[in-house]
């Protein structure tokens, strides 16, 4: 009897030791670990530099480009937000991006449900047609789009951008969401039918809540490229009060002098929403990306 507790304690410490050892050992060996840390540094240093530089004055930046941001100065933010019109650009970016993401997600969710459950052959052709959109590099179509928008009076219109981005997001969104809808058991819909729900009620109350992780994934993945896009707003917008953030940034680049600290402040303003979005949606996205792996 007396030997037993000692034995158990021994086993326990051994277990603890092995656990400690395994947590200290880098995953995949030292070389891989060094490489990954190196990559992380390469990726993070420019970001840190951007943030640091945004808190310094322009004169400081020019005399000592890599200096420390001390004392902190928020003057460049004030300048970017007010003089540089970033408040307007920010609102425009938010409007265009959210509008486009909402449009493509709503359209794609409904279409994906129909495509996933439709038994007719037409649906299969339609799906193939949508998916072929994935292969089309939309930036190559900028001229036709320009002429189309010109004809429709959508040049210099934020609505035009919303429609264009919305449409361009549909193939990817349908691709992801159709797969998700297909994984849901048909019995759920049958149960809802027997419970008296119409097709629309089944879709809204049963199916959409169940594909929420996929919807979040799709929304975030569409949000980022639209938010960052420079080419389309540059080509399709004319007046400065309609500019989005990436185009708005260029207003700081003068012919003779550039207000670097304001540019950096603008970049931070542009980047922060994306970081926030990822922080908020990571859980949903991970659920979306890994769903169906264990089944």
């Amino acid at each position, binding site marked *: 009897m007396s030997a037993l507790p000692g034995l158990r304690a021994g086993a326990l410490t051994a277990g603890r030791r092995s656990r400690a050892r395994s947590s200290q050992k880098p995953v995949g060996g030292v070389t891989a670990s060094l490489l990954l840390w190196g990559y992380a540094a390469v990726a993070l240093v420019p970001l840190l530099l951007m943030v640091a530089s945004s808190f310094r004055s322009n004169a400081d930046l020019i005399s000592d480009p890599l200096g420390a941001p001390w004392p902190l100065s928020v003057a460049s933010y004030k300048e970017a937000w007010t003089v540089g019109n970033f408040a307007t650009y920010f609102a425009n970016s938010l409007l265009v991006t959210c509008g486009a993401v909402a449009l493509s997600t709503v359209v794609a969710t409904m279409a994906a449900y129909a495509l996933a459950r439709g038994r007719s052959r037409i649906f299969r052709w339609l799906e193939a047609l949508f998916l072929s959109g994935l292969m089309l590099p939309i930036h190559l179509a900028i001229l036709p789009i320009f002429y189309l928008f010109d004809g429709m009076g959508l040049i210099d219109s934020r609505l035009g951008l919303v429609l264009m981005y919305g449409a361009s997001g549909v193939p990817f969104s349908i691709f992801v969401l159709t797969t998700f809808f297909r994984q849901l*058991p048909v*019995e*759920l819909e*049958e*149960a*809802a*039918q*027997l*419970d*008296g*729900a*119409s097709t629309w*009620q089944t879709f809204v*109350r*049963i199916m959409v*809540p*169940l594909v929420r992780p996929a919807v979040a994934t799709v929304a975030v993945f569409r949000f980022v490229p639209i938010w960052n896009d420079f080419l389309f707003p540059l080509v399709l917008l004319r007046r400065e009060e309609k500019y989005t953030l990436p185009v708005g940034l260029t207003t700081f680049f003068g012919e003779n002098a550039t207000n670097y600290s304001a540019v950096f402040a603008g970049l931070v303003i542009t980047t922060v929403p994306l970081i926030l979005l990822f922080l908020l949606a990571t859980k949903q996205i991970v659920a979306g990306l890994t769903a169906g792996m264990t089944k």
Partner: protein
Amino acid sequence: MATVKFDEATRIYPGNDIPSVDKLNIDIADGEFLVLVGPSGCGKSTSLRMLAGLEEVNDGKIWIGDRDVTNLSPKDRDVAMVFQNYALYPHMTVADNMGFALKIAGVDKSEITKRVKEAAKILDLEPYLERKPKALSGGQRQRVAMGRAIVRQPQVFLMDEPLSNLDAKLRVQTRTQIASLQRRLGVTTVYVTHDQIEAMTMGDRVAVLKDGILQQCDTPRRMYDHPNNVFVAGFIGSPAMNLLDVAVVDGGVKLGTGTYPVARDHLKDAHGRSVTMGVRPEDLDLTTEGNGIPVVVDVVEELGADAYIYGTAKDAHQHQDYDESGGDLPERPFIARVDGRRPPQKGETVYLAPKEGHVHMFDTENGLRLGD
């Protein structure tokens, strides 16, 4: 509450020539518990889904009460279904799951709460009403699925193998609970299972299907004592009935070295020179050498009060026809129930004689019951 009537109901899946359900005729009385049973692929689930409206009816009609529901959509049929995998809405709480149908129907919120509470009380689900399905055990989920059906107060309950996802012990418990609940509520119920014990213990009547064709629809007792054909005889009862192909001789049939007396009248409709004789394991007596069927004992299953011997019958031809899988099957053992206190030994040869009046005779060619 209502009667249900399948009237020549037929379902042919697109791309198939053979109907999955072929001219099904069943009349189900108000408040009756009818069990559809059969091997997999026999059309029992399809029949249930036709009644639910989830499967098209290609020919014939289905009635609920005096309404022809053949072409009605599921939501207009006033039936509630319990699915094999329960199909609970994963994002809703137990209470919301149970109240969903009423909510859709626009029932008053306080009325929904009241009815959900009542059902939860009956099913012992009160502590779990605010939980999501994934936080429940298998048995609890099954009860929520039942609750969802009860809350509706529908005309007909449909249950599609609701117990097959439970472990053996819980299955037996829940079996009794469902049967007694159904009697208490008095709602007409159609229940699908592949387990003939479930069918026999739960149903007021049992309908046996095979290859989409109704074989027999009777009370469990009648089904057991009076199987209409070889298939039902072999399917109902556990362990299964022994079926032997025996030659017709003067005054009866040839059994082992002797003759088992059967009235000539009894066999007058037989097509061939031999008939199929069925004897249940409990209807066999041990006898002396020279009488009855010699059987070499392979396995003895001791259950306490009884023992079952599984052996090979000598000088007798096992009837193989009824096995559904069609391929080359190992010869089915000859099974007999014997006294549990003095079971024969493995390898021993015993002589078994059927009890008088407890054999079933079938036509070997078409499998139909001969005589009364």
